[in-house]
């Protein structure tokens, strides 16, 4: 028996979309679900495509969820709802995101399920647009999607109303009773703390914290490695209370918990390694000023409640829900002060180039957070150089020591440029990309450093290293690509100090940087 095809074939006429005038151009129809991570991953690329081509989004969810999705991701193309999932049935799709490229006669030119950078670039070419997806932008090359809403088992009636957005329901947190006479702060300090005092998570404080999130308190946002504890909204709120967050910080904390559990970041490994790594949070976009994140002087330190409490809340969540306690599962040899709090925001106002999250595929007005498995910052002072090459050279010498001097290709780095250094580089007409490429081409380890050191870390892998000339000297190139070096601008406008932050094991075999919308 031959089963009917579940995909519209190329050349078939696509079902009519109510209210859509095809006009004279091709259009890309994209079906999505608002809670599908792959659909969310695809939006920044579709936004790019929408700059030069016609993209139409079809949401399988209700209006409230659709509005939240389009606002969070700042969709740059029109979106309409598939009421009753009628269109999804007519297009006969199986998974979301589903992409249908149709010509002006309504004929299907191509269809695709899921996320795939190569396919997106091919579609861009077909629509006479430049490529929209780069190879090494932090997102995977491809990712399968979710089952189309109309095929989910809970849709019982053939043309019933669209189901509500589903979520995984967790168990309400238990209530602990602390007897009279016991010192409440001392009890919390010893039971839930991270070796610093915490604010007692009373039901009243948690109710206030939950007022900052329009989400069911029992919704499971993620399961936090390495013990895979359920991070319900309520548990996240309890840890946010303990860290001293204000209720509006829940806006950042929910996507932050999702991001930290993204398999690409591999927090399981980050929390269990003997290395120094701790997740560094980088905040971008309007939320910086809305919630009071500091990005001027003392960007890494104790200057603002927003940075300090968000960073600490994340760490408490990793400890209390994820279970990586520093006296047991987390066996880091030396640790990292960032395990109390490691959160900065970009000084976008002093950044002469595009903000970091724009480089990562988001719109400027979209707030976003980035996570990087990071060592502690290593300072670079350069107060006398006046040319970009000289400033960047000083930074490249620090970059050469990341992980360990002789080890190449295995790590990445974030360079936090101070506003003064960024200005010196920009004033000479350099773009951020040019600065990154210069750092890439000028960071290396002299071949002579491997003489008489066959057992030293990094020496065993020299056959894999690329030899280049830096200032006439034979060197092994330190990093794999220019994308291994990311530039963020932060700090006060006085002081020519920048910082280099090394990574843990980088790439798909270790940890990959992730950026999520807020």
């Amino acid at each position, binding site marked *: 028996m031959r089963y009917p095809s579940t995909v519209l074939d190329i050349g078939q006429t696509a079902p009519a979309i109510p209210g859509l005038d095809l006009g004279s151009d091709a259009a890309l129809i994209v079906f999505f679900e608002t809670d599908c991570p792959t659909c969310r991953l695809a939006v920044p690329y579709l936004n790019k495509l929408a700059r030069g081509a016609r993209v139409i989004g079809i949401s399988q969810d209700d209006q409230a969820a659709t509005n939240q999705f389009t606002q969070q991701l700042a969709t740059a193309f029109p979106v309409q709802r598939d009421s009753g999932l009628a269109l999804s049935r007519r297009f006969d799709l199986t998974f979301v995101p589903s992409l249908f490229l149709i010509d002006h006669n309504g004929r299907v030119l191509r269809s695709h399920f899921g996320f795939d950078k190569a396919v997106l670039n091919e579609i861009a070419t077909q629509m006479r647009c430049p490529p929209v997806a780069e190879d090494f932008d932090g997102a995977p090359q491809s990712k399968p999607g979710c089952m189309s809403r109309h095929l989910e088992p809970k849709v019982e009636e053939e043309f019933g109303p669209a189901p509500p957005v589903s979520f995984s329901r967790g168990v309400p947190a238990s*209530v602990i009773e602390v007897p009279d006479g016991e010192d409440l702060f001392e009890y919390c300090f010893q039971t839930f703390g991270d070796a610093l005092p915490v604010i007692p998570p009373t039901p009243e404080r948690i109710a206030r914290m939950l007022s900052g999130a329009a989400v069911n308190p029992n919704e499971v946002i993620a399961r936090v490695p390495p013990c895979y504890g359920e991070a319900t909204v309520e548990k996240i709120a309890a840890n946010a209370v303990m860290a001293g967050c204000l209720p509006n910080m829940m806006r950042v904390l929910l996507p932050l918990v999702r991001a930290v559990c993204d398999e690409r970041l591999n927090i399981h490994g980050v929390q269990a390694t003997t290395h120094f790594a701790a997740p560094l949070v980088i905040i971008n976009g309007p939320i910086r000023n809305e919630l009071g994140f500091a990005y001027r002087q003392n960007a890494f330190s104790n200057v603002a409640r927003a940075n300090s409490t968000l960073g600490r809340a994340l760490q408490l969540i990793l400890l209390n829900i994820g279970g990586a306690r520093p006296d047991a599962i987390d066996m880091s040899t030396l640790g990292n002060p960032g395990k109390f709090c490691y959160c900065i925001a970009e000084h976008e106002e002093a950044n002469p180039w595009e903000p970091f999250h724009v480089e990562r595929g988001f719109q400027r007005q979209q707030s976003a957070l980035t996570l990087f498995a990071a060592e502690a910052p290593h300072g670079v002072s350069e107060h006398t150089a006046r040319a970009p090459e000289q400033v960047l050279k000083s930074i490249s010498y620090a970059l050469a020591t990341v992980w360990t001097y002789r080890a190449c290709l295995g790590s990445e780095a974030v360079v936090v440029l101070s506003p003064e250094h960024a200005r010196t580089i920009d004033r000479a007409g350099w773009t951020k990309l040019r600065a990154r490429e210069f750092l890439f081409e000028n960071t290396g380890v002299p071949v002579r450093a491997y003489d008489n050191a066959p057992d030293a870390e990094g020496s065993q892998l020299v056959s894999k290293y690329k030899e280049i000339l830096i200032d006439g000297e034979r060197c092994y190139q330190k990093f794999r690509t220019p994308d291994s070096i990311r530039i963020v601008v932060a700090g006060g406008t006085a002081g020519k100090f920048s910082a280099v932050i090394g990574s843990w094991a980088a790439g798909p075999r270790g940890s990959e940087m992730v950026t999520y919308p807020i």
Partner: protein
Amino acid sequence: MPTKLINPMNEAPLRVSLPPARLRSLQGKTVGLLDISKTGGNLFLDRLEQLLRERFHVANVVRTAKPTFAKPAPPGIIEQLRTVDAVVEALAD
């Protein structure tokens, strides 16, 4: 009156597994050797395999390696080791 607090910790019950009974002898047994892919793990396990065969007369040795030390073993590796009598994991460099 006692003060009420909302429990901020993971409350999912942890699955506790007891270690299997200790083997009385290695003779005739199958031993799995898991290399987590850290530098030097193969040197250690090569020597261990030799000792297991020559001195302890094991019947068979199953050698396997994780693709990366930075992530948990994929299911295929675990399945491969499910049938052996004992496993030695070369954890660190």
